């Protein structure tokens, strides 16, 4: 059914606004919250905001045989409470998610991973995407509506709902709050520039994270030492997760209060990363106690699993490989030479200046990679 606005989605007539909201609930289009009724006029306005035709393809999710058009993205973005000017951000996120290195289908997994969306560049101020206090909100329209627009379009167009191709144990709050900006008014190099973009580019970087992110880490301000701050972060990272040695791309969220400290100490983001790579480590004794040890090996001898004297002095690093002990802690795929999965630390200047705390986003294990895409505004 093609309307004069060039739209082809099936249309429903309802008596009023409230009935539209209830229809979305009954039809299974809602994520549990009320939606903004996606009228043809609003949808056309949202499509115009990216300067393409309604039928133009925005994302092709080949494994699920789902092609998302500008029109379908617009319908879901309206429903989510977006403004038209958020559409270029949503397009860039979907493009990133269909990059082969992201490996989209991992989102079906019981681990409940969902992409954290990190936004850089001038667009963050133009759209008012929060990078500071109460970072994950709720409280800012741009943050929540962009996160929700992504969540709704994947729910309604790509089976990303528990009734369909998604088995997440806990679900993931990032589906509602997982869009944040970086504070680029610090001396530190913003994430997108670190990843090869120009400062004046607006960029999204997506990285799949487990629920429970951000992990809240308290730090010790003794001696105003940046090493002491990071030691607590390193311990929390390396001891996260129980029976898993979770390798991937972590994101450390640092507020302005501590960025001042790092600046005074002459530390760049790369210095932070180098320190964490060296010091996020766990002993064999601890890994045995956690039952990480040998988890992916068949028929382990109980003797091999028992903690022996000396195990407390042998360490494995979270963010770099051990020369010989990897098979005892690693998923077998990760041992193969052509295994394509980044292991890294992003340092992201964001969050409030409350002091005493840093935040950690824990990556999905094994399957995916962070992807960055330039945001194109027509």
């Amino acid at each position, binding site marked *: 059914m093609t309307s004069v606005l060039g*739209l082809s*989605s*099936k*249309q*429903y*007539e*309802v*008596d*009023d*606004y*409230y*009935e*539209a909201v209830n*229809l*979305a609930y009954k039809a299974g*289009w809602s994520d549990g919250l009320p939606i903004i*009724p*996606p*009228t*043809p006029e609003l*949808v056309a306005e949202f499509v115009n905001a990216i300067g393409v035709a309604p039928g133009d393809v925005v994302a092709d999710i080949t*494994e699920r*045989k*789902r*092609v*998302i058009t500008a*029109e*379908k993205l617009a*319908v*879901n973005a309206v*429903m989510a409470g977006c403004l038209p000017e958020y559409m270029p951000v949503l397009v860039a996120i979907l493009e990133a998610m269909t990059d082969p290195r992201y*490996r989209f*289908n*991992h*989102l*079906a*997994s*019981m681990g409940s991973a969902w992409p954290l969306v990190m936004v850089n560049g001038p667009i963050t101020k133009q759209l008012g995407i929060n990078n500071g206090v109460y970072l994950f909100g709720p409280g800012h329209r741009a943050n929540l509506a962009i996160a929700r627009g992504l969540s*709704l*379009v994947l729910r*309604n*167009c790509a*089976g990303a709902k*528990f009734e*369909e*191709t*998604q*088995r*997440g144990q806990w679900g993931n709050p990032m589906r509602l709050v997982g869009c944040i900006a970086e504070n680029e008014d610090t001396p530190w190099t913003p994430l997108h520039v670190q990843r090869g973009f120009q400062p004046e580019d607006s960029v999204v970087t997506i990285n799949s994270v487990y629920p429970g992110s951000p992990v809240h880490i308290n730090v010790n301000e003794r001696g105003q030492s940046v090493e002491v701050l990071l030691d607590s972060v390193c311990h929390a990272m390396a001891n996260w997760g129980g029976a898993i040695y979770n390798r991937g791309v972590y994101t450390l969220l640092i507020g302005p209060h501590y960025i001042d400290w790092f600046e005074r100490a002459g530390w760049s983001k790369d210095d932070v990363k180098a320190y964490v790579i060296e010091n996020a480590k766990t002993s064999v004794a601890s890994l045995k106690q956690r039952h990480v040890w040998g988890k*992916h090996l*068949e*028929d382990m001898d109980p003797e091999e699993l028992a903690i022996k004297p000396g195990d407390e002095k042998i360490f494995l690093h979270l963010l770099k490989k051990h020369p010989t002990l990897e098979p005892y802690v690693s998923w*077998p*795929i990760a041992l*193969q030479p*052509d*295994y*394509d999965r980044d292991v890294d630390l992003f340092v992201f200047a964001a969050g409030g200046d409350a002091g005493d705390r840093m935040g950690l986003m824990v990556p999905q294990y*094994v*399957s995916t990679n962070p992807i960055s895409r330039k945001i194109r505004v027509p």
Partner: protein
Amino acid sequence: MSKLTILDPTIAIPEAEGVTLAPRLPSLKGKKIGIIWNNKQPGEGLLHEMAARMVQDGAILGPFLTKPYLGNVATDEILDELQSCDAVVSGVGDCGSCMSANVLDAIMMERRGVPATAVGTERLAETTGRGMARFHGVPRFPIAIIRSHPVRLEGVTKPEDRKSLVDEFYPQVVEALTIGAPQN
């Protein structure tokens, strides 16, 4: 308040193309069977045990290939190499992404004209496995389902446990490749 028109936010699922896409085998006798392992334990041992039964039933073993990423469809290289087989089995799915990917492997072989099926646990087969089959227009695609362990297979390491799991799913694999009727 005045009447409103609103638009549907969903994409229509394609019309069902049928239950399976490729012709079924008369039996496994003399047929070359390829196997895709999703790189997740304990699937390797289970698939080898299944392969041994197939040989006992007169089948010939084709390539046993391992996927690099358990949550995604097999690479084109793997799918192309298995095209010379008479049938293919992909397994063993015991999580959301891997089960759906095992089903997709089987559907991709079907589209290459090779009858195929996937093996996985009940809870995942009936949700993400079935969901993937629906996306590809074959909502009743036959999946060999392990019901004794409805979710995760981790910890199934003893030979007698392996044997009893294969007892459970092997007949369904044979039926999926020969008759092709849906299992549920």
